[in-house]
């Protein structure tokens, strides 16, 4: 029976076969407890944050759990001492874990959500030469939503995997009608759209091994992910000017990749030297070398045969297409450390204090040429507090918890020197700080 259930649920997870990782959670964490511990929780998380850090941990949830919270970042990223006013990231977090058992096998279902205040996600691309904070400008501006399954086939093993909902955009546009060259606003045009938000799915699998009551190990794999925006437009109109009517046919295609997240592999451990103390360590390999340029490749072709007498100044030009320069990012290893001390307050209540640190070396090579992907190494220092109140009222048989966290990121200034003195952007220094503040409150029914 146990083997059948194991096989069935594993098959179910494999069929779903798709996991979740995401810009906002990768950069600023998910859940106040885990974020306060530097995100080093792949072997430790069994709350809602396990939906991101390691879905296997859901199988160890203590009871039906609901969590909600809010996250806000404050950027102080500068170039040459001037603030770049990077869009702040802010949004609500919500999640649940529903543990139970299928026959004798502990089983859990989890949902995790980070929803930005202003949008589900954004695809944004800029001119190739325009400086932008590649890791922070747009990448965190998107939804993280995953649904996960986990089970505990043996007392020492938990495994899990999940499903995410995100989309790439493909659109075909067609515009026809009468185009008034001398007064474009009086043009009588109509359009047709065939657009798809195509489902993107990428795998995430995790496992956690309990070597003893005090020592746990974890391994997590997250697949590659990218948002693409491919638009092809056809303008098929009659251009009217000076009493002449001439067919004008233009094709424009734009192709861009945004919010690229590379493959990741995480190894982690969690150790409880005492019942009041937990030490966590993770190391993450991130395949940034596969990064694809977010610059939009644009191509435009026009068929226009002006009759005699048509003003040459109104004949459209034929511009050259974009040449996208490969970004040539490098892989990196990210070490993360976390610690949590717990203080019992009696009657099941408890107080916790947490801290964490991580270091992210920049994967972006020196920008000596035409691109300006601005970045710097990042030291992340985090801290947090938590309180857990047990059996507070008869209506809530379990815990009410509140966690708060703050993360300070320091990006030491990095000098970019251009190979050519004629480069229009020139040399620059870039660095700064990022504050991330948040809270998570939840109910854990036991």
């Amino acid at each position, binding site marked *: 029976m146990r083997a059948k259930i194991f096989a069935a649920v594993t098959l179910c997870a494999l069929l779903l076969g798709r996991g979740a990782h995401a810009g906002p959670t990768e950069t600023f964490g998910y859940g106040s407890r885990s974020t306060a511990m530097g995100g080093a929780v792949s072997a430790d998380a069994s709350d809602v944050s396990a939906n991101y850090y390691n879905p296997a941990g859901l199988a160890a949830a203590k009871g039906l759990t609901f969590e909600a919270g809010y996250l806000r970042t404050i950027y102080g990223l500068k170039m040459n001492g001037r603030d770049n006013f990077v869009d702040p990231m802010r949004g609500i977090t919500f999640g649940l874990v529903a543990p139970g058992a299928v026959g004798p096998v502990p089983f859990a279902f989890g949902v995790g959500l980070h929803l930005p205040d202003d949008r589900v996600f954004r695809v944004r691309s800029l001119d190739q030469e325009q400086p932008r904070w590649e890791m922070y400008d747009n990448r965190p501006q998107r939804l993280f939503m995953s649904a996960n399954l986990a089970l505990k086939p043996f007392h020492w093993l938990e495994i899990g995997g999940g499903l995410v909902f995100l989309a790439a955009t493909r659109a075909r546009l067609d515009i026809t009608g009468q185009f008034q060259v001398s007064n474009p606003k009086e043009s009588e045009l109509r359009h047709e759209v065939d657009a798809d938000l195509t489902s993107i799915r990428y795998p995430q699998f995790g496992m956690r091994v309990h070597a003893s009551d005090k020592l746990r190990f974890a391994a997590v794999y997250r697949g590659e992910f990218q948002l693409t*925006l491919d638009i092809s437009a056809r303008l098929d109109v009659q251009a009217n000017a000076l009493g002449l009517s001439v067919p004008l046919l233009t094709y424009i295609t734009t192709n861009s990749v945004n919010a690229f997240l590379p493959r990741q592999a995480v190894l982690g451990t969690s150790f409880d030297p005492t019942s009041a103390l937990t030490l966590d360590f993770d190391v993450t390999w991130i395949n940034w070398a596969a990064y694809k340029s977010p610059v939009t490749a644009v191509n435009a072709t026009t068929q226009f045969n002006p009759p005699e007498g048509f003003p040459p100044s109104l004949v459209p030009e034929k511009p050259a297409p974009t040449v996208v320069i490969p970004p040539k990012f490098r892989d990196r290893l990210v070490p993360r450390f976390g610690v949590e001390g717990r203080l019992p307050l009696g009657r099941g209540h408890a107080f916790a204090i947490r801290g964490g640190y991580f270091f992210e070396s920049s994967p972006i090579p020196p920008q000596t040429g035409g691109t300006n992907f601005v970045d710097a190494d990042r030291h992340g220092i985090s801290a947090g507090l938590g309180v857990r109140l047990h059996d507070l009222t008869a209506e809530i048989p379990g815990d009410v918890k509140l966690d708060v966290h703050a993360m300070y990121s320091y990006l030491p200034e990095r000098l970019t020197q251009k190979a050519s003195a004629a480069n229009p952007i020139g040399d620059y220094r870039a660095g700064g700080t990022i504050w991330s503040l948040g809270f998570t409150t939840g109910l854990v029914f036991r």
Partner: protein
Amino acid sequence: MGMTSAASAEGYEAIYGNPGLLAESRKKALTLGVGIARHALIANTDQASLTLPTDEMKTIYIGAALPIPFGGALRDRVTFGVGFLNPVKFLVRGKILYPERYQYPVVAPRVQSIAVTMGIGARITDRIYLGAGFEALAAVVGEILISLDATGRIGSRTDDQVIAAYAPIASVAVDAHPRWRLGLTYRGELVGRFALTIRAQDLGIPLPDFNVAGIAQYIPHQLALEARWSSVDGNGALPANRHGTRIAGGLLYRMWSRYPGPNEPTVLANTDFGTGSPPIDAHDTISPRVGVEHGIPLSAVAGFRLRGGYALEPTPLPPQTGKENFLDSTRHVVTGGLGVVGDDSLPFQLDVFAQLHVLQNRLHEKKEGGCSAGTCPSVTSGGTITVVGITAGVRF
């Protein structure tokens, strides 16, 4: 069950049908499933018979009903539910066609969009259930600026956002008698809009801003009123190990008169021209529906379910007498399904279902201006839509 739900929904399906009835779920339940829809919609003229090309749509269902284990006065009263209906290939497909192209704006888009629903149901008294929730749909807004860069090459700046559109769901169910239940559900309007502004500069010709926009998905305000009778006392689900029958019937009102049609003007500044077409002029509809479920015990711990139903879906669109071809016909929907369900000692459920939508043949005689001779012939709409699916659930 004939797409009845306001008084008869069970499990996670109650999130949409009547979230108040979520409160009947007293064990955590997770359901996974898949459905396939095939459209065979016609546009026949005197000159040609045409079946519109439509992709087969595969859809994944994921749903969970999670009773919240409150204690005290709230014990066994509140259940949370979440559901995802996710087309395999797309989150959203938006086809906004020229009005003269043959298209079915009412039925075609509805299976081509992800639907996310969340709800909570509460048993207020032993006979009254209240529920609330929301349904979410994706919409796209954005801007593309095309211009020449410093080197004279064409480049663009893109800012494309997917935003969420939300619609509330509110419901009440009342057990008027141990065998009779009444349900009332309201679902708000949901608009999935595609809106892209394209600006082109420095291309040597002065182009207007192109407002490439339209409504790709539209779900009108809805109000469902339904009654359900059960042959077994107690208005919950039929016991797995007993014979029993449930019959549900009701009306679904849809406020299609607010539907603005799929098209929007390309050049916003030219208000005189607009979309180049008259308003779509849809009208409200009332859809009657009826369903029946019969339970047969298979053993002491499992039972068999046989379901069937019928719904009449009047068309909200007027005959297309101009050059436009927003086609639709009144639909007859016949449904059927089978299921196997276990009791708490065998906490599994397996269901299969099928729907056949038959669109009445409807002649759209072209009478009005805008059609030069032979360019827009009278057309007959009709056809079928078939949907089959399977869901498997576990209670834990």
